[in-house]
């Protein structure tokens, strides 16, 4: 069986590196596709014409992104029938109440704040990966 893909929407290259490392250390072998801004994420998820080449089982979405911010990406994901029930986990530095409320209003499945301490970051990634890719039953 083809292992499930993850779309990581993240503009900070350090965070991209830590996330990849954390997944590897958690023995999650899923392919991780990286989008470095909101525009790229939408191009991957909602291409205007052709068939989608990337069909992720999970989106890890940062909020503060260049060009199109994370909340807008989330809104468009939910507005399109192709991705309306795709699991989206907001993974961000902010714990601003307004961001949390808005994310859930727009249909985020989960909101996780990136911890400063690497071991906690590793733990969070590992829990997220095993829950959303192994345990959770996604919409068909």
């Amino acid at each position, binding site marked *: 069986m083809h292992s499930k893909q993850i779309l990581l929407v993240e503009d*900070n290259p*350090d*965070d991209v*590196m*830590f996330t990849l*490392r954390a997944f590897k250390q958690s023995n999650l072998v899923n392919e991780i596709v990286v989008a470095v801004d909101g525009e790229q994420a939408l191009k991957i998820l909602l291409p205007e014409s052709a068939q989608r080449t990337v069909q992720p089982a999970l989106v890890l979405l940062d909020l*503060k992104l260049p060009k199109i911010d994370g909340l807008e990406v989330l809104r468009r994901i939910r507005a399109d029938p192709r991705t309306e029930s795709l699991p989206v986990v907001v993974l*961000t*530095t*902010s*714990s*601003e109440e307004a961001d949390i409320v808005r994310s859930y209003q727009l249909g985020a499945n989960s909101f996780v704040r*990136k*911890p*400063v*301490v*690497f*071991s906690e*970051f590793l733990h969070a990634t590992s829990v997220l990966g095993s829950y959303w890719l192994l345990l959770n039953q996604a919409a068909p």
Partner: protein
Amino acid sequence: MTTEPVVGNPARPTGPPEFPVGPSELQALIDNTNAVIYMRDLDGRYMVVNHEYERLFHMRREEMIGLTDYDLFSTEIADEFRANDLRAVSSGGPVNVEEEAPGADGPHTYITVKFPLLDSAGKAYAVCGISTDITARKRTEEQVRRLNAELEQRVQELEASTRELDAFAYSVSHDLRAPLRSVHGFSQILLEDYDGKLDDDGRQCLQRIQSNVTRMGQLIDDLLRLSHVTRTGLKRELVDIGAQAHEIFDELRRAEPGRRVETVIADALVTTGDRLLIRLALENLLANAWKFTGKNDQAAICVGAVGPSDSQVFFVRDNGAGFDMRYAEKLFNPFQRLHPVSEFEGTGIGLAIVQRILSRHGGRIWAESEPGKGCTFFFTLTDIPDPRDGHA
């Protein structure tokens, strides 16, 4: 009460006055008021004016009789006065109007009652007016309006700066934490991937970098919590401080089941305020007391109140480490600590949060202590006089 007869107060005459009341008496009567009084015929010609009228418009009554308002004021003003006169005539009784007339220091506003004089057939033959100058009141009202507008302006400025503060807090949260994560993460990579190339000193340096980064992360979070306390809305509801203290002590016991701490909570500790904020203040105070009694085998914490119920002073007393009263004022500054981190953990934000919560309620906090003899934090949730002022 005195029973002696009052001297020099002759008995009041009981019959009718011994002199007739004629035009000059009535003129004297209306001349001695600061209201403006006048009578005009149906064509608007002055028949009677009082002294105040003469004084205000610098004319003698002999000159005025027979003139109309069109001789004295601008057409616009005279038209308005005339219209009001005619309203009184057509209504057949008194009407109240607000009128404006020029004065020495600009326009004056009068509240005027106008009424027609009726003959035996009920037909009006003259109009009387009594005008009271309300300019001072008007100007005060205008000033109040202006001050309110200014206040509104200030509120808007304040709201704008609060929004700015919000944006700042957000940016602090995001922009400062991200590099910290990188420093911590790369230190971790060095520790894991380059373990063979590092000696013990090198590893220890990296660990110290990490612990400092962790601490800075806590400080940023604390700063954000402090700003949140300042920005969040304030509710006024009945709050049972005693019940909250019970819950908090239960939580502290669960977190450290090994500790033996005697806790005493007085009865009926009830106040009015924001339940969540008061809970947060109490959590900080009790956690402090819990922490600073950590080295005492017979630790005891007491929560109580003194004073009448409408101006209660609550207190949290412990027999812990205490502090030097010379530094008492510094206690409530953010990130101020009076003990080394090696002795007692913490970032020093707790009491700053408590103070903000209490001051947002209009209350206060202060402490009394001696090193090694525990300390007592007194706090109020309303603006009541500082009991210390009495002893000062």
